[in-house]
């Protein structure tokens, strides 16, 4: 059973549910952040949106809610945790992933399809892609400029922790064109692009589907 964590202001929760339940045909349920008991779950998705209205910083308030301690425990147990867009911002602000997402250099909210280069093909979410492969997903964010200090960047580069890089032009000014990063163990991924919006041909592409399929394979293999 995969949980889809809802905070006040999450708005991609039902899109992720559709991708999981209807597209890749797995068991999933919505979890309201106040429920706090995540012990029965095999994996978790923190969907996109504007949790707490993006007040303070995007993802900052959700990142400090008590349920995040449960999410950290899940990650520590090796269960797969996926943060999409606002979910990525929440994972960074909670310390589960390094770095932060600052305002796009253009100051604009950018909503468009982008090309992504697969940089890591070994994590729980990326092992069905091939390293160097170019895939397409859509982005929709105002604060997606990935930033971290030099030591963290080297650590990410040296340990194959950059999952995806923007291909073509960098849309938001991210350091090293970073679109997504994984934790050291490869069971926590955060990315700004939306795989759930690229999981069916009718949406304009289905390159995101493999991410959910890889997550399911990983759960089965544990």
């Amino acid at each position: 059973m995969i949980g889809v964590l809802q905070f006040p202001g999450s708005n991609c929760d039902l899109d992720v549910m559709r991708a999981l339940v209807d597209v890749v045909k797995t068991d999933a349920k919505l979890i309201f952040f106040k429920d706090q008991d995540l012990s029965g779950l095999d994996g978790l998705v923190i969907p996109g949106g504007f949790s707490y209205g993006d007040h303070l910083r995007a993802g900052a308030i959700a990142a400090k809610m008590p349920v995040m301690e449960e999410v950290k425990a899940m990650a520590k147990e090796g269960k797969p945790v996926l943060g999409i867009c606002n979910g990525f911002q929440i994972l960074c602000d909670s310390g589960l992933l390094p770095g932060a997402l600052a305002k796009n250099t253009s100051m604009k909210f950018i909503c468009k399809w982008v090309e992504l280069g697969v940089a890591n093909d070994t994590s729980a979410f990326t092992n069905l892609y091939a390293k160097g492969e170019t895939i397409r997903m859509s982005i929709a964010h105002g604060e997606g400029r990935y930033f971290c200090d030099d030591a963290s960047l080297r650590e990410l580069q040296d340990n194959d922790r950059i999952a995806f890089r923007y291909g073509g032009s960098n849309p938001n000014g991210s350091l090293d064109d970073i679109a997504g990063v994984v934790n050291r163990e490869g069971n926590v991924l955060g990315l700004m692009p939306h795989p759930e919006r690229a999981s069916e041909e009718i949406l304009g592409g289905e390159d995101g589907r493999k991410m959910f399929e890889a997550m399911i394979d990983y759960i089965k293999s544990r």
Partner: protein
Amino acid sequence: MEQDIEIIVKLKEGLLNPEAKTIERSLNLLGYKNVSQFDTERVFLMKVDAPSAKEAEKYADEMCRRILVNPVIEDYTIMVK
């Protein structure tokens, strides 16, 4: 005793502040060619009930480290008034 706290949060030096750049460019466009190094920061104001100014500052610092500031991209200064 209620202590007035002011916290100033700003982007770390060297990190591009696109909002400040945009405002600076528009000031230059309006004819203020003598404006440079324009910057923006955020100010948080609050009252903290604590026995002393030092205690109040300690609470404020804890709040900054816990939620108000993201140390990856921001620096902060606390003032007890």
